């Protein structure tokens, strides 16, 4: 049966998170921006609400509430502060990486620190991006070489969310150079590992409370048990990780879009020009209507994808359901990122000069909108993935990895 109504439990959770977002997050957005992070007290509250572990299964220490519940709650949090979901503490992308790529035992052990007391100050990170593309071959510059009973990692990673906060990393590196994007491996690396250096935090366009940075790996040795093999098909597991993680980012994008829409709708109601509220002029009103469609349709796509993941997880994780997850996630991700940007941009535009001023939140939301589209999978990558599924092409990890190689026309 098709239904758009959350369960009673979900409604209660949404209400409590919405209250938290309205009363605690939204009033502090400029404070978070200035502090470049979310204060410890707020992170504690978020941890008590269990926000970091919603989607992860109980078997690995999560709340087991599924992707749909996560999507609902992430939207509410991001409505309050788009950075918050990334900056609360908790496993974040790391959680989905160990879930999709690791064994249950690996995931359970890796996630244990996040469920314990003090979890609000424990961060995870996944390091995939690199500052420079490899000009010689497809794949990453960072390599993992077999050495004795373990692996030696060498290279540098960039654009890593929470690089300077994370205690635990999943690092993607080239295991087999000849195999290009199909020759990658994933490794659990602790911050304390010898040879790992956290690089200086970057200053970014938006999402000021999120930390973006890099790590250097100089002869970092990890045991064999730190390698995440992704079950029987590492490449498929890797694409699932990217899709699942980016879908959560898209759910945040919906919250951001709605926030920009809400403040703008309120503004056009109250701002008067030529003797009436500016919202009573058609070009303004129609823009509001278009952005309302963006918010609602984006949410519909995110829900549809989240529902596909919950079906996949509850079933036998078969290939057909997997493709459905990938296609629907890709649709949602690309649509929401573009829609969020339209909501931010039109939001500033309809505020006029006021929109450019930091007295109003909308300029921040516009900056956040561009930034959030770069946190998981870009709209372009999502489109490549969706297109590949639609025409039955092989699902190559290169489709979704943020490197110029995705656009092979440029190689």
């Amino acid at each position, binding site marked *: *049966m*098709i*239904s*758009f*109504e*959350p*369960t009673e439990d*979900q409604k209660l959770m949404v209400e409590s998170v919405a209250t938290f977002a309205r009363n605690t997050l939204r009033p502090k957005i400029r404070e978070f921006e200035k502090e470049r992070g979310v204060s410890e007290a707020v992170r504690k509250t978020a941890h008590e609400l269990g926000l970091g572990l919603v989607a992860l299964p109980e078997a690995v220490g999560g709340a087991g509430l599924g992707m*749909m519940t996560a999507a609902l709650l992430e939207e509410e949090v991001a409505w309050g502060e788009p950075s918050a979901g990334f900056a609360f503490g908790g496993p974040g992308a790391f959680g989905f990486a160990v879930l999709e790529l690791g064994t249950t035992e690996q995931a359970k052990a890796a996630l244990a620190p996040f469920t314990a007391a003090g979890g609000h100050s424990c961060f995870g990170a996944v390091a995939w991006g690199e500052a420079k593309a490899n000009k010689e071959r497809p794949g990453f510059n960072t390599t993992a070489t077999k050495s004795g009973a373990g692996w030696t990692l060498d290279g540098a990673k960039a654009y890593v969310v929470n690089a300077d906060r994370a205690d635990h990393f999943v690092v993607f590196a080239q295991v087999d150079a000849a195999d290009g994007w199909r020759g990658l491996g994933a490794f659990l690396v602790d911050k304390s590992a010898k040879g790992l250096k956290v690089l200086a935090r970057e200053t970014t366009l938006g999402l000021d409370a999120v930390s973006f940075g890099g790590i250097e790996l100089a002869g970092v040795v990890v045991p064999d048990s730190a390698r995440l093999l992704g079950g029987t098909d590492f490449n498929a597991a890797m694409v699932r990780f990217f899709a699942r993680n980016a879908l959560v980012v898209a759910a945040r994008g919906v919250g951001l879009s709605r926030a920009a829409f809400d403040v703008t*709708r309120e503004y*056009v*109601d109250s701002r008067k020009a030529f003797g009436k*509220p500016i*919202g*009573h*002029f*058609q070009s303004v*009103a*129609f823009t*509001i*209507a*278009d952005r*309302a*469609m963006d918010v*609602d*349709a*984006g949410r*519909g*796509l995110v*829900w*549809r994808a989240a*529902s*596909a993941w919950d*079906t996949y997880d509850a079933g036998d994780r078969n290939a057909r359901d997997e493709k459905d997850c990938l*296609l*629907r996630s*890709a*649709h*949602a991700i*690309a*649509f929401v990122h573009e829609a969020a940007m339209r909501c931010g941009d039109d939001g500033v535009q309809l505020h006029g000069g006021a929109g450019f001023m930091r007295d109003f939140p909308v300029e921040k939301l516009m900056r956040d909108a561009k930034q959030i589209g770069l946190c998981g999978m870009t709209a*372009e990558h*999502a*489109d*490549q*993935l*969706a*297109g*590949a599924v*639609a*025409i*039955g*092409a092989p699902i190559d990890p*290169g*489709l979704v990895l943020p490197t110029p190689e*995705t*656009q*092979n*026309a440029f190689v």
Partner: protein
Amino acid sequence: MPIEFSLTKKQLEMREGIHGLAKNVIRPQSLAWDRAGGIPEEFLRNMARLATSMGSNAMRSGLGDETDEVKKEAEKKRPSGSNLFGAIASEELAWGDGSLLLGLPGPGLGGPPVKGSGTEEQKKRFFGVFEDLEGAPLKWGAYGLTEPNAGSDVSGIRTSCRKDGRHWVLNGRKCYITNGARASWTVIFATIDPSLGRAGHRAFVVEKGMAGFSVGRIEEKMGLRASETAELVLEDCRVPEENLLGGEEKYVSKEGFMTAMKTFDNTRPLVAAMACGIGRGAYEYACDFAKHNYMLSRPVPRYSAIVERLAKVGRSLEAARSLVWRAAWMADSGLSNAKEASMSKAMAGQAAIKACIEAIEICGAEGSIARDHQLLEKWFRDIKVYDIFEGTGAIQRIVISKRLISDLKSF
């Protein structure tokens, strides 16, 4: 009922059945109907029989005198969530051919105003003509609102009516009336005095053969050529007073006008669903073309631009579908959905037009040649009107924005 997007087993079976029909029976004849400018009556009769056997109430359109038992029986036949299933069925049928649904015998768009505003006697009389599907010739109803100088601005209608004894005398012209020439009766909107605005409007059921009621020209159209679109002429047309819809007392308030509008809340999602069906046809065609013309010899990423275009079309259609389903689900749940119905229509019309244009471009110059890609060429012509009839995109935005912006009564 949690948020869910899967169909019940019965709904899936019905959808597959309808899709099979669309694929094997409807689509193969679609071009011939387009060229002939109509669909053979025997085919329409079979389709109507089929619809009735599947529990559709299109033929009876909720006859007022249904006993509870009859209603219960109809409910049993009809899948629960009839608006939603109507949307799904409409998408499948339009995937086969866009004109077919518009040409099906029955009250058509004339149904809702008679059902909503007619007296019991009128409902019985006007719906009664559709009862006999077998022996009698096929019958249609129609909806006559648009005039040469009044379309979306319904308050501008100039067709006049004045009381003369026990009759009303109507004068004016109606245009772009679907099934207008063959309709057994048409709901005609007229005014007793244009200066009264909405309060002056009256709705009549004007029957074929009434003195002074004639068919003007049958329009030649860009697309949907198998659907009949006619001009209706009223020259001192004498309509008995018992054909004034709802009787005199109905017009003490502004309801007369509202009758015209209520028609659309339920039909817009269906029209939007049809647009999704045509757009999906074009999208699938283009995916298939890309697959067979590029895939075999070269790797897809070389054609990342084409893949990306396909993905954009795919996600826009999916976004529109999510709005369609939501609007239909709201109707089934008894929630008022004027805003959401308009959203679905606004987004689906545009997404489907884009899909049809892109499909032609992806298939290259050949896409526009009727000989080689006949359906693409036809869909391109058919789809444009989906952003026009049942309210243009601009009208949908008026409906939406009035429900988002405070105190916005009119522009």
